[in-house]
């Protein structure tokens, strides 16, 4: 656009120069034609009438300049605006109409263009309504699917092999992340489209699950589903059922995780286990007394009367005791609910190999293996059982002070003994009993279950022994039953993707594993953005103004994700000037009990991780964030795009680049102006409308957008 402006002035300058050359040339030639007398006469004449002649020349120049200015204002500038706005109508806002001041011809041009635009708009609307009606049917199906998904009692997450989340339902979000649980920073996990599943689950766990599934697929096993248990939000325990998605060549191309909260089930199962155990043991003990006493009486009929009386009393007492125990029949209890925590068949060698790797990496403990062959299997929930093994290993390491351990497999009659051997100091049995009652913890991993609960769930036992063969050698043995080879009762059917695109959702991301290449050279439309806005107590962060509200929304693959929002009021720990309350409407009493900025910024930082930040007049917001770096320890190093600068890039001849003006130009409705969330949403919508306009100017990548923004910034600064 600027190039055209230059050309206009170049033409003016050239014609002026040509005019000057002609005048000077004529004057030189004319002078040569004149006799000295005639020249003298002319010069005298010129001198005598210099004033009027000068006035005449100035007037002529003035008229010329006025004429040029009017041409510029009435024709040239309106034409430039028209050119700019045509691109506005075409991809962005078809309802935009040209209202440009200018000459009558320009007005006529605008009228014709408006007619064309109206026609274009009606055509577009027509096409859109046709497309919409054609799509209505599939939309309906899609909505039904979405409704079913959101109403499912189980959480569902679908991710690609790289771990990027492609789909999730509300239940999954509730099970996994809770913003309110501020006391436990670790439980703060964000789940969102395009985010990594590893933010939610331990990476090793998922990798191990995928390895297991891949192995099962290779062996053509009918049941390829794998299970694991992982902590959920607010101290819950989740059971995840991992179902693979295969492509048409039966290659692994994604994972469906079906999540359910088993905290309650576990509690009732533990209750049931305990009740059943004490029930059976109680009856056994009492019955033993009765039987032994009566057998004694029968065998020795001539015993003395006192002894006979004692034995009779025993029989009476214990039969009453059995009556009491039977009243507590555990099957009558409402807690009697069997668990949904299935065990999976795993090769012992696999289990030990994982153990070996983790111990080497995490606690620098060397593990040797002994007596392992590939044929020994156990039925375990691999994550909780591994954690149990690791917890015990770490206890052995710290209690006995060893740096090396041997894992041994001892086949017993109907059990498998998984032995952890060490030589050196013995560990007392009561130490082991203390471990059994503590929740499992290994490094940063942990479960709310105790070692005893996990062992009981596996129908196993644990004991500590001294080796009879080797001197000063001790071992902890996990007894596990040898798994029965029975077919699983229910198995989920395999999901195999058709060769063409699936029907309902956009699973294009299946094709791109979740790598993070250089942001800068990636297409703007393919990047993930966090569009945000801050409300503050005032305009001067350096003079003590504070953030009181943060609103943000995510853009993934060119879509503004209305459900993936970050909205948080902040206690500024200072008063709020009335002048600012009038703008944002946040009254001090609304901020009572809200978290402070050092709690909110780390959360927001996590929310915005690995994305490009977008804000309107970003310099203002970034300044606030930067000034808080020292206090919160959180640094925002994300690339930043400013919609104010982008607006100036795409519409250089407009002077107004405030939020309202841009929104009006682009046909964006701001639903809640001057709330952090409302402004962030509007900014996001504007940003998406800028993308096609930027590509018209050959700006496709983040690098190019940043460069153009910088250039505009300096250009604007100079004015």
């Amino acid at each position, binding site marked *: 656009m600027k190039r055209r402006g230059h050309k206009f002035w170049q033409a003016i300058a050239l014609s002026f120069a040509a005019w000057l050359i002609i005048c000077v040339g004529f004057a030189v030639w004319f002078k040569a034609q004149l006799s000295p007398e005639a020249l003298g006469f002319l010069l005298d004449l010129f001198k005598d009438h210099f004033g009027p002649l000068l006035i005449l020349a100035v007037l002529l120049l003035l008229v010329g300049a006025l004429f040029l200015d009017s041409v510029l204002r009435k024709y040239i500038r309106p034409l430039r605006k028209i050119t700019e706005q045509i691109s506005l109508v075409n991809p962005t806002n078809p309802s935009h109409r040209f209202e440009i001041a200018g000459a009558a011809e320009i007005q006529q041009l605008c009228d014709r263009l408006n007619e064309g635009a109206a026609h274009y708009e009606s055509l577009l609307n027509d096409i859109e309504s046709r497309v919409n009606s054609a799509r209505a049917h599939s939309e309906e199906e899609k909505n039904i699917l979405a409704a079913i998904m959101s109403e499912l009692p189980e959480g569902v997450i679908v991710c690609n092999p790289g771990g990027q989340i492609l789909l999730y339902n509300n239940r999954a979000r509730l099970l996994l992340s809770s913003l309110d649980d501020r006391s436990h920073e670790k439980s703060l996990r964000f789940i969102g489209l395009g985010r990594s599943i590893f933010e939610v689950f331990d990476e090793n766990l998922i990798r191990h699950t995928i390895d297991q599934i891949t192995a099962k697929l290779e062996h053509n096993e009918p049941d390829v589903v794998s299970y694991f248990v992982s902590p959920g939000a607010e101290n819950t325990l989740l059971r995840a059922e991992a179902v693979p998605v295969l492509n048409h060549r039966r290659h692994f191309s994604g994972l469906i995780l079906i999540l359910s909260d088993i905290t309650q089930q576990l509690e009732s199962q533990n209750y049931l286990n305990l009740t059943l155990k004490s029930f059976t*043991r109680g009856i056994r003990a009492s*019955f033993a007394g009765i039987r032994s006493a009566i057998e004694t009486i029968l065998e020795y009929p001539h015993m003395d009367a006192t002894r006979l009386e004692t034995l009779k009393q025993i029989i009476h007492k214990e039969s009453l005791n059995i009556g009491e125990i039977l009243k507590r029949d555990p099957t009558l209890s409402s807690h009697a609910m069997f668990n949904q925590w299935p065990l999976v068949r795993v090769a012992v060698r696999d289990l030990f190999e994982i153990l070996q790797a983790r111990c080497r990496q995490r606690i620098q403990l060397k593990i040797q293996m002994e007596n392992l062959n590939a044929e020994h299997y156990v039925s375990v929930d691999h994550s909780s059982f591994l954690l149990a093994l690791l917890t015990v290993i770490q206890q052995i390491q710290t209690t006995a002070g060893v740096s090396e351990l041997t894992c041994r497999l001892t086949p017993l009659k109907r059990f498998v003994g998984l032995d952890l051997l060490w030589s050196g100091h013995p560990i007392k049995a009561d130490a082991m009993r203390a471990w059994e009652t503590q929740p499992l913890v290994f490094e940063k991993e942990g479960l709310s279950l105790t070692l005893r609960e996990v062992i009981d769930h596996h129908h196993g036992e644990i004991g500590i022994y001294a080796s009879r063969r080797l001197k000063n050698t001790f071992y902890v043995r996990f007894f596990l039953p040898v798994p029965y080879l029975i077919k699983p009762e229910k198995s989920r059917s395999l999901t195999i993707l058709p060769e063409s695109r699936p029907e309902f959702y956009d699973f294009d991301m299946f094709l791109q594993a979740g790598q993070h290449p250089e942001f800068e050279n990636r297409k703007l439309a393919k990047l993930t953005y966090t569009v945000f806005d801050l409300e503050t107590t005032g305009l001067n962060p350096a003079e003590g103004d504070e953030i009181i509200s943060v609103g943000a929304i995510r853009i993934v693959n060119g879509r503004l994700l209305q459900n993936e929002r970050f909205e948080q009021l902040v206690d500024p720990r200072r008063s709020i000037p009335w002048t600012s309350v009038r703008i944002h409407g946040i009254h001090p009493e609304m901020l009572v009990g809200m978290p402070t900025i050092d709690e909110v910024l780390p959360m927001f930082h996590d929310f915005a991780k690995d994305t490009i930040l977008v804000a309107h007049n970003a310099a203002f917001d970034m300044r606030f964030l930067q000034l808080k770096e020292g206090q919160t320890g959180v640094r925002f190093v994300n690339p930043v795009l400013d919609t104010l600068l982008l607006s100036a890039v795409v519409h250089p001849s407009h002077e107004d680049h405030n939020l309202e003006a841009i929104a009006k130009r682009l046909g964006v409705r701001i639903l809640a102006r001057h709330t952090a969330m409302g402004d962030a949403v509007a900014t996001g919508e504007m940003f998406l409308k800028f993308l096609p306009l930027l590509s018209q100017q050959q700006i496709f990548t983040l690098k190019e957008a940043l460069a153009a923004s910088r250039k505009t910034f300096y250009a604007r600064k100079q004015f």
Partner: protein
Amino acid sequence: MPKEILIVDDEPSIVVPIQFLMEQQGYNVIIAKNGEDALDVILKYKPDLILLDIMLPGIDGYEVCEIVRLNPDFRNVKIIFLTAKGREVEIAKGMALGADAYIIKPFSNAEVVAKVKELLEKTHEKTGT
């Protein structure tokens, strides 16, 4: 000299009939009501056989068994678990600790007597040869 048998159980309903039974068989019987007492008695009298319950107040039967087996002086002491812990895995655990037999409550008197005799005769044979 009559053989010494130690019964370790906190339940009189079990102790009384078993004690009578064993005395009728001609054994000397000592009683301990918990793990600590049992260990004291073992050190003092070095019994030939222990009838050991697992669920005891304080030190449990597993640990008593383990301590006894760690001491080479008591290598020949026979240990029979006499317990209501009847799950297979519990039996495996008990036997791995070095017990000689595992009797689950409820038991028949004849079963206990037979087991005790069998084990004590084995010792006799060993010491006799």
